[in-house]
């Protein structure tokens, strides 16, 4: 049985945005591994996630976890046309940088660096934030991501024009919108249900 109490994990908080591998510790009790129901296990989609405290915390509400994970997988991993994988990851990193999610930014800046043509842009984004000087196509993407991430939402026709001028077709623009929108979902869970741990291991 899960207790309704706030946890205060001992962590080494990261001081900067980083591409280094860091961990994450929950502020509420995850479902213990040996108490996961069949429905909760099914909602994890990837069986390896039983080890993850983050996903076992989300397993308290399995229906939304399952639908969220399947949405995530298609937005980032569907290779059929549209935005290249690295630029989807770059959009996730930029969204996380702007919202202030050090953990999410670490994971997705690593993925972005692995795939994009200009990996030095990824570190500049982490170091200087969304005002960083970047190559033209990355700059157009970051400007669009920032406008979409603002509340109230500020994304407009001028951003579409800039993205098209930078060479994105409409499938790619739709992918950028989804990647950034999805990280507005992910950042809020990661930031509010626990904290990053520089001494921790990958989720």
């Amino acid at each position, binding site marked *: 049985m*899960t*207790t*309704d*109490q*706030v946890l*205060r994990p001992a962590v080494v908080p*990261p*001081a*900067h945005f980083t591409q280094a591998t860091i961990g994450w510790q929950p*502020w*509420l*009790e995850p479902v213990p591994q040996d108490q996961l129901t069949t429905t909760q296990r099914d909602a994890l989609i990837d069986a390896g996630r039983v080890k993850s405290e983050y996903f076992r*915390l*989300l397993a*308290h*509400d*399995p*229906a*939304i976890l*399952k*639908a*969220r994970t*399947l*949405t995530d997988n*298609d*937005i980032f991993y*569907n290779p*059929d046309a*549209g935005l290249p994988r690295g630029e989807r990851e770059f959009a996730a990193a930029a969204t996380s940088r702007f*919202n*202030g999610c*050090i953990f999410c930014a670490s994971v997705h800046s690593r993925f972005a660096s692995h795939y994009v043509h200009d990996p030095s842009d990824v570190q500049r984004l982490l170091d200087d*934030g969304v005002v960083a000087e970047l190559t033209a196509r990355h700059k157009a993407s970051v400007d669009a991501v920032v406008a*979409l*991430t*603002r*509340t*109230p*939402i500020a994304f407009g*026709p001028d*951003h*579409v*024009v800039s993205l098209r001028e930078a060479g994105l077709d*409409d499938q790619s*623009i*739709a*992918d950028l*919108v*989804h990647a*950034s*929108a999805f990280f*507005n*979902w*992910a*950042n*809020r869970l990661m*930031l*509010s*249900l626990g*904290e990053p741990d520089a001494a921790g291991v990958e989720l």
Partner: protein
Amino acid sequence: MTSDIIDRLADVAPGSRVDGLRQRRAQARTNSQASYDALFTAPDQTGVSRTERLAVATFVSSLHGAARAHDHYRGLLQASAGRQVADMVDRVAAEGDTQGPYGRFPDSADLRDEDSPGLVLSLDAAAADALGERLTAAVQHAHLLVLRPRESSPKALAALLSAGWSTPQVVTLSQLVAFLSFQLRVVHGLTVLKESNA
């Protein structure tokens, strides 16, 4: 009329250019809808009432300036809980209206020059009385999540627990606000793309 909520809110017509873009990401489309269904139409699994869900959705869509989504959620809220509650949610959303994301980073982070403190919404006695202890705490937490998520803390979760939210209910509430942060941006982005002639 399509039953897909994002298509409805963004006015995506079957066979249109944007419909074609969405068809190419069919699993994301299906599961964005499944997410909405899990949070708003499926039988509740964690003990978060329909009124609580719709009140938070009305509040969050108002903060985003998402007029059509706000009309949708407010209409359902009013049908579920009455005009007085819906009006009060709109009132507190107007009080919480500001521009995000903002906030201070944790003291441990060497990001002082990026700190941007801003409004911390605290409902007055009349609002707290009308909405009740649980919903008051939920609305204040939703304001934190939408606008200054970097200021999240164990203390913010403790406030929810002491207002009667269980751990699974906090997970549902967090997913609700976070999902809406996704849904409203997809609707907004697709609407702009639809209106931008190829």
